[in-house]
């Protein structure tokens, strides 16, 4: 009985869809057109696809499986530092891969803390290099994301239901079965798909920790085809393969997911009556271990960078300013794209596929396509920052949608009919109903978009010149010139500024009184 979205919303959603398609398939089209057609990739493409699929699937399953107890614990416990842990959940996700890798190395590497401990206990050393390293890094990146997505699901179960369950005397098992399982059914497939798609395009992490050419991913094959063989046709085919894999995953998730169908509650703080005794221990362990796992490498980045932080050249600060500006612009654009899509979307496959295309897009192909589309008319360096902001916005869109779609659905089921019956529409409806209802989801989305944009090197390499370097770019420049100390300082600066942006937006969304 849900009424259709307003015509304005639908037009804006159509526009947003066009932007997404243009930047993903459109840029690929430009590359194909320049290549004069598709070509067959040389070398061991089959192996690359197999390894890519395997590591992406393993990373996704492990990230989500580990996220379940963590999110559950965070949903049903109130404790000092809970807010800090939740903010921490935004951090690894946004780190440039090289920074994250060095952080992981400091903890899990040959001379890292973990092996030092194991050595002290007389236990054999664990290796960070090989498939297990790739998956460890991907879990490090994605466990927090999975946790936050599941936590949203948990918080979306109306408090009334838990009260009802408590009144029936439901134990944790029954609650899991009747309340939490249906929610997981609705949320988990989407989270799995998102992380799977994210790991599909992994490249630097997979290579660096993969230990050698056995760990060749499709994205590396694209990179090779493009930069080494300059075979745009082959690069395009591989990019298509990547799109196809991600779209299949999206379709699968769409087929498996069941909307939870909890009605709307009045949005009070969720209080739980289940779970004392050993469940308390289990929750404490889940949160504690996850926090340790995430904080360790981050702490290493901080310690390593502290010395260099005060020795940073002026250009790094200028780059920070540019990065912040790009992040804010990109965040605004991302929300402007995501909101109409989330509002207009019904349970359609198209929005699922639309939401996965940007993650499955090869940044290299996207950058090349944009370059091909623009360089005849404008000098690339003049639009570098605009392009970066636009691309980052689209790259963040899947995450924004993952968060905002369920919120929009809840809103429609909850207050959509009431707003409709009262004749609230247009700006008034946006202001009075949509924004308040979506505030938490939008804050979280904005935090993700801003932080992702801060950390992303993305497509800038074909466009940037010295005047439009962003902070990650500057960081790589420092590393490329032997200045590892300063690079570590810049990494810390990047970590701190990304986290600050994430925290501000996420916080802004959660500040809503009581809801």
């Amino acid at each position, binding site marked *: *009985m849900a009424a259709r979205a307003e015509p304005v919303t639908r037009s804006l959603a159509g526009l947003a869809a066009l932007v997404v398609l243009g930047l993903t398939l459109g840029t690929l089209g430009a590359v194909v057109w320049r290549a004069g057609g598709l070509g067959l990739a040389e070398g061991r493409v089959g192996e690359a696809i197999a390894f890519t699929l395997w590591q992406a699937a393993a990373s996704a399953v492990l990230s989500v499986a580990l996220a379940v107890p963590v999110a559950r614990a965070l949903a049903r416990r109130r404790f000092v530092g809970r807010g800090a842990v939740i903010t921490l959940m935004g951090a690894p996700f946004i780190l440039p891969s090289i920074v994250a890798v060095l952080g992981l190395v400091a903890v899990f590497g040959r001379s890292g803390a973990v092996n030092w401990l194991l050595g002290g206990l007389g236990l054999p050393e664990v290796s960070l290099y090989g498939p297990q390293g790739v998956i460890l890094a991907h879990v490090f990146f994605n466990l927090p994301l999975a946790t936050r997505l599941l936590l949203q699901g948990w918080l979306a179960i109306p408090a009334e239901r838990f009260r009802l369950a408590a009144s029936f005397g439901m134990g944790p098992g029954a609650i899991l079965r009747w309340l939490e399982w249906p929610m997981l059914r609705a949320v988990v497939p989407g989270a799995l798909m998102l992380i799977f798609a994210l790991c599909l395009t992994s490249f630097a992490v997979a290579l660096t920790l993969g230990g050698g050419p056995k760990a060749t991913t499709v994205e590396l094959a694209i990179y090779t085809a493009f930069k080494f063989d300059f075979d745009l046709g082959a690069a395009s085919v591989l990019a298509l393969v990547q799109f196809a894999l991600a779209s299949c995953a999206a379709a699968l998730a769409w087929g498996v997911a069941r909307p939870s169908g909890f009605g709307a509650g009045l949005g009070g703080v969720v209080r739980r009556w289940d779970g004392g005794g050993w469940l308390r221990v289990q929750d404490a362990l889940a949160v504690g271990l996850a926090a340790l796992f995430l904080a360790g490498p981050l702490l290493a980045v901080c310690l390593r960078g502290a010395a260099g932080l005060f020795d940073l050249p002026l250009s790094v600060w200028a780059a920070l300013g540019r990065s912040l500006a790009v992040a804010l612009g990109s965040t605004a654009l991302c929300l402007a794209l995501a909101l109409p899509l989330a509002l207009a979307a019904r349970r359609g496959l198209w929005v699922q596929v639309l939401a996965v295309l940007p993650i499955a897009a090869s940044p290299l192909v996207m950058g090349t396509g944009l370059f091909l589309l623009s360089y005849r008319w404008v000098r690339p360096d003049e639009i570098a920052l605009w392009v970066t902001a636009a691309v980052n916005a689209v790259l963040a869109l899947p995450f924004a949608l993952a968060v905002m779609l369920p919120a929009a659905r809840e809103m429609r089921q909850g207050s959509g009919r*009431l707003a409709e*019956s009262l004749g609230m529409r247009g700006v008034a409806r946006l202001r*009075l109903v949509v924004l*308040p209802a979506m505030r938490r989801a939008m804050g979280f989305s904005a935090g993700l978009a801003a932080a992702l944009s801060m950390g992303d090197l993305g497509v800038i390499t074909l466009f940037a010149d010295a005047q439009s370097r962003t902070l990650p770019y500057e960081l790589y420049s420092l590393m490329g010139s032997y200045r590892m100390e300063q690079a570590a300082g810049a990494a810390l600066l990047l970590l701190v500024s990304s986290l600050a942006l994430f925290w501000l937006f996420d916080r802004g969304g959660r500040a*809503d009184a009581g*809801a």
Partner: protein
Amino acid sequence: MLALEGLRLEQGDFTLEAEWRAEAGARIAVIGPSGAGKSTLLMGIAGFLEPAAGRVLIGGADMAGKPPGDRPLSLLFQEGNLFSHMSVAQNVGLGLRPDLRLSREDSRAVGAALERVGLGGMGGRKPRALSGGQQSRVALARVLLRHRPVLLLDEPFAALGPALKTEMLDLVDEIAGEAVVLMVTHDPNDARRFAPQAVLVAEGRAGAPVATGPLLDDPPEVLRAYLG
């Protein structure tokens, strides 16, 4: 006032037909077995469901193509009649201005409406802080301000106790005045008490309003099983 002309509503395989009119000031109970389409009838009149055939007329005007908010009617649902993030006064104020840009005059009217439903001075609270009965009163205060010639009630008081429900029905009657009121109910006593007329929804038809008492005293087969 309210006229249904050759109306046919469809939802998947389900169809519901209606052909009748109601005069101003009418109080009509909508009764019938569960799943017979009582809510569907209201949704069709309110505009959440476009008719597959026929017309809905209010005050002689064809409602075809009009979105729910533009129809001269008010609607109360089983639940979710209030925005939880808005204050009581804001929830009521929506009845005057859907964009909540209330003039001083408007705010006074909101205050007066709250007085009238017995919630004077509670305008600043959030709905969560109110009891179920009080929440219903807030929704009724809004109905009062909207002042529409048709009022549709989809069991909004089902969750209230008998005494409270009676109180609410009296309040509705008082507030509705000359408006046509259609009320879905499962409770024969409510129907008898509140509505001189009743519409029986069963077997794909919403029949014309008939006197409530005789209908309930001598119910047709479909209703008998339901009333037990």
